[in-house]
């Protein structure tokens, strides 16, 4: 790593620059947006909203997931996973869905649940 790269790392302080990569500002913004989106999907997946996060997205995920569980497995399938409707998440329902629908169908189903979110 040369001196200019070390300076860039000091200036930007990001992971990519730590490995000697420097990015134009618009690309850095795109990466930031992507990492924010990934974090948001991760929270939606686990069903644990971060502080200050909008709860409507979580409600929508739970509603969609309950509908898919009802259509594919059975209306009372949610009760096998959790006693409270509030705790329903992709993380806890994925093993059941994968067992009975298969990995590929479950992946597609998860995509449907997280669509436009």
């Amino acid at each position, binding site marked *: 790593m040369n001196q200019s790269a070390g300076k860039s790392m000091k200036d930007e302080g990001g992971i990519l620059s730590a490995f000697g990569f420097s990015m134009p500002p618009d690309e850095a913004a795109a990466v930031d947006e992507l990492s924010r989106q990934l974090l948001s999907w991760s929270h939606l997946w686990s069903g644990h909203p971060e502080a200050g996060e909008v709860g409507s997205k979580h409600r929508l995920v739970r509603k969609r997931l309950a509908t898919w569980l009802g259509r594919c497995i059975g209306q009372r399938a949610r009760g*096998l996973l959790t006693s409270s409707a509030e705790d329903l998440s992709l993380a806890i329902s994925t093993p059941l869905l994968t067992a009975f629908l298969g990995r590929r169908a479950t992946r597609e189903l998860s995509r449907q649940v997280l669509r436009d979110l």
Partner: protein
Amino acid sequence: MPRFVQWIWRVCAIHVMLGMAAYLYYLMTDSYRYLIWYFWIEGTLFLLLMTAAESFLALQCRAGFDADEPMRLAWTFIALSSFSRFAGAVLMAAKGWHFTWITGQTSSALALISLERLARIGDVVGGPLALALLAAGLSRVLKIQRMFNVLSRLTRMDRLLIGLIVAFTLGQVVNIAQYIAHRPQLSTVFLWLSDPLLALLLIEAVLIRRSVIRVGFGLISQCWGMYVIAIVTTSAGDASLWAANAGLLSAPMTALSWYIWFFASAAFASAPAYQLAAMSLPSAEESAARTRV
């Protein structure tokens, strides 16, 4: 109801309606003419169509699971069971159609003997072998259901039913042990296994029925529910054959009982159709969403 399931039951309804016309003709004239024609030609074609559809659908379900997924093995057994039923139907149709249309035209008595032997093999392949493979597949399903706590506790009625089935099976096993002393043909011995295997399937059906009640009627639970219907109708068909042989059924009732097999084969074909509908539903929604955009 998924499109494929609708198609199966529409074909079954049309087929049975035609059969009812033949049955009414028999009741009015006491002639078996159209009834024989219906069961040997149309009935055989229907069974071939249903077992072929069942095999194709079960194979598609199996392909939906990756090699390391537990349900893959369950669907492998179920698909093999479907193929056995199809192969059995083909072998029996070969014999039935040969005797109907070609008797007297064949120059070789050996050909008839071979067909007779093939039909015996067909009986075994489409009967006990198919039942054993289905029992293996469903026991795998039950194991997976137990892992996910899908199986609920049995009610007193369920336990009573299972107790009756076990008692009946033990009685059958004692009978079989007595008959084996008379050195029967190997195919006959295999055919005797049908009743114990059906009893095992009935026990599995009771457990699966409980799980269906527990999770409600989604596509997957309707798939297993269809297997319960198929097993129960197969047992009813088997019982009616026994009752007819024992002279407990009148001739019109015996003829009517033959229709049970069509419902059993339609139920067997519907089960993988439900599973396939559940597996393809998410991607179907995705395609529909893309079309809307």
